[in-house]
C-alpha cells in the first residue's frame, strides 16, 4: 500500500507541476501572442487588404506589404467604410455597375463567426420556439421551452409544467414528417434580436436534416431533402451534419452554416436550401476560427489557427475570385518557445473556452 501511495504522490506531483510550472513560465515571460491579421477584400483594387497589429500599432497594408494612410485605406474599401465616406462626400456612385446606396449596403452586410469552442460546447437542452409569423414587427419570446428527446415536449416556464396539448400537436407533426427520435443535433438562434425567425435545424437519429418552425401556433416541420430541388436532394440525403450554426441575416440569403459528417464546411443558401461548399484549404473545425463576411459585391471567408491564416474572396455566386495564404509567426519558433519546449517536455492544460478539459501536450 505504501508503494502505491508513493506512486500516486509522485504522479500527482508530476501532473500538478506539469500544469503550474508552464503557467508560471507564461506569467514570467508575459509574451504577447501574435494576432492573425484582419482581412478585407477590396472591390476597388480586387485584392486583399489587411489590418495588422504589431504590438500596439495598427498598420493598414495590402498583400505586398505596402502601407496605407487611413483615408486611402478607407477609400479602397468603400463597402466597409461607407458611413465615413458618405460623411466625407467620397462614396463612389457605383462599382462594377452596381449602385452604392447606403441602405442597400447596410442591408447586404453579413458577418458570421464560427469559433472552435462553438463546435462542441455543451448547452442546456431547452429551446424557445418563437412564433415565426406573428404579424408583429418584433419577434417575441414564447412563454414555454421545447425539449426533444424521445418525444417533443413544451415546458411552461411560469408553472414548470408540461403543455400537454401543444406537445401532442408537435409529436404528431414529427411523426408525420418521419422524424427518428432522439435527435442528434438541435440548432437555432434563440434570441429575439434578429430580423425574422428561421426556427430550428434538427438532425434526427438517422442523420436526416429537418427544419422546424412554428407558424401561427402550428408546427411547420420540413425534411430538407424533400423540399430541396432534385439537384441537391441527393447531397442533403448523405450530408449527415454534425454542427449547424443558425444566424438570420437581413437578406434571408444564408439560412445556416453547417459542418457535414465528413468535416467539410457548407453554407445553406436561399429558399431552395442550396448547399454551397466553402472552398477552404485544410479547414479543421476544432482548431480554426472561421469568419464569413459579406457585402453588396463579395463574400469573404477567413480561417485562422496558430500557424496559418487563409482568406478566400468569392463573388455573389460563391465562385472564388481570389485566395490568400500566409504562415503566422508562432511562439513555438521563438527563443522563448524553444526554451519552454526544453524546460517542459509535456504540459497539462485545462483550456478555457467556457468548458474545462484535460489536455496532455
Amino acid at each position, binding site marked *: 500500500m505504501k508503494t502505491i*501511495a508513493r506512486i500516486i*504522490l509522485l504522479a500527482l506531483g508530476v501532473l500538478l507541476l506539469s500544469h503550474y510550472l508552464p503557467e508560471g513560465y507564461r506569467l514570467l515571460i508575459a509574451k504577447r501572442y501574435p494576432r492573425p491579421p484582419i482581412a478585407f477584400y477590396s472591390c476597388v483594387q480586387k485584392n486583399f487588404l489587411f489590418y495588422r497589429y504589431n504590438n500596439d500599432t495598427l498598420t493598414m497594408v495590402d498583400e505586398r506589404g505596402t502601407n496605407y494612410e487611413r483615408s486611402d485605406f478607407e477609400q479602397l474599401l468603400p463597402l466597409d467604410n461607407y458611413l465615413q465616406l458618405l460623411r466625407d462626400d467620397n462614396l463612389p456612385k457605383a462599382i462594377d455597375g452596381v449602385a452604392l446606396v447606403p441602405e442597400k449596403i447596410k442591408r447586404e452586410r453579413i458577418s458570421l463567426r464560427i469559433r472552435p469552442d462553438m463546435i462542441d460546447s455543451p448547452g*442546456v437542452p*431547452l429551446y424557445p420556439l418563437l412564433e415565426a409569423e406573428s404579424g408583429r414587427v418584433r419577434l417575441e*419570446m414564447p*412563454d414555454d421551452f421545447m425539449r426533444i428527446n424521445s418525444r417533443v415536449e413544451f415546458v411552461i416556464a*411560469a408553472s*414548470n409544467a408540461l403543455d400537454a396539448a401543444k406537445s401532442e400537436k408537435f409529436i404528431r407533426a414529427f411523426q408525420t414528417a418521419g422524424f427518428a427520435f432522439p435527435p442528434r443535433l438541435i440548432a437555432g438562434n434563440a434570441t429575439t434580436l434578429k430580423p425574422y425567425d428561421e426556427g430550428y435545424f434538427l438532425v434526427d437519429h438517422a442523420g436526416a436534416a429537418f427544419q422546424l418552425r412554428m407558424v401561427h401556433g402550428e408546427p411547420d416541420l420540413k425534411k430538407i431533402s424533400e423540399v430541396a430541388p432534385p439537384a441537391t436532394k441527393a447531397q442533403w440525403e448523405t450530408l449527415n451534419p454534425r454542427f449547424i450554426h443558425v444566424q438570420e441575416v437581413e437578406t434571408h440569403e444564408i439560412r445556416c452554416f453547417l459542418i457535414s459528417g465528413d468535416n467539410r464546411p457548407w453554407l445553406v443558401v436561399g429558399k431552395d436550401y442550396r448547399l454551397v461548399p466553402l472552398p477552404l484549404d485544410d479547414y479543421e473545425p476544432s482548431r480554426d476560427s472561421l469568419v464569413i463576411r459579406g457585402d453588396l459585391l463579395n463574400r469573404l471567408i477567413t480561417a485562422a489557427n496558430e500557424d496559418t491564416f487563409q482568406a478566400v474572396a468569392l463573388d455573389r455566386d460563391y465562385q472564388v475570385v481570389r485566395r490568400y495564404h500566409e504562415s503566422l509567426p508562432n511562439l513555438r519558433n521563438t527563443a522563448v518557445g524553444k526554451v519552454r519546449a526544453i524546460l517542459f517536455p509535456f504540459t497539462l492544460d485545462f483550456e*478555457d473556452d467556457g468548458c474545462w478539459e*484535460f489536455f496532455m501536450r
Partner: protein
Amino acid sequence: MFKSLAYKEWIKLRIYWGLIFLAHLAFCLFLCLQLRRICKVNAALSVWDNWLFKDFLFFRPCQFGPLLMGIVFAALQFFPEILAKRLRLVLHLPLSEERAVGAHLGVGLGLLTLAFLPGVALLAFCASIWFPHEFLLNLAYIYAPWLLGGYAAYLFSAFTLLEPTWRYRVFNFLLGASFVRLCYFPTTYDGYLRLLAWLGLATAAAVVLPLLSANRFGKGYGS
C-alpha cells in the same frame, strides 16, 4: 475493531459534526429562500432566460462551503490526534497501520458526506419546484467539482496535519492547495463536464496519501 474506532471518532466529533451539519443545512436553506425570492420577484421567463442563455449561477455562493467544511473537519478530527502524539496509541493497536488510519479516514469521509448531502438534497428539491429536470442536472454538474474540492481539501488537510515534519508539511500543503484549485476554475453550468471524471479519479487516488504521513508519524520522524 473498526466499530470501536468508528465509535471513538463519533464520540470525538459528534458535537462538531452536528454544528457543521446544521450550519451547512442552514446555508442551503438560505440559498433556497434566495432562489425562491428570485423566482417570486422576477418573471419566470426572465429567470429561465438568465439560467439558459446568460449562465447565471444561482448557487455561486455555495462554492467554497464544501472546501471550508473539508478543512475544518480534517482539523477537528486530526488536531487532537497529533497533539501530544495521541495517534501513536492508535498505531499501536493490534491492527495494521493502513487499516487504522483508513478507518479514521473512512469515518471522516462518511461524516463529511452525511453533512453535505442533506443540504444538497434540499437545494435540489427546492430547485425542482421552479425548474425542470435539466436544471437539476446542471446543478449536479456545477456542484460536483465543489464537492470534490471539499473531499480533496479534507484528504490533503489530513495528509498535511498527520505529517510529522514541517518541511514535508509545507510541501503537502502546497500540493493540496494546487490540487484543490483545479476544482475552482471560473465556470459555467456544464463547464466541468469533461474534467469531472479525471478530477474524481485523482481525488479518489488521494485517499491513500494520508497513509504515507501516518506511516512517517509512526516511525517517529520529527520527534
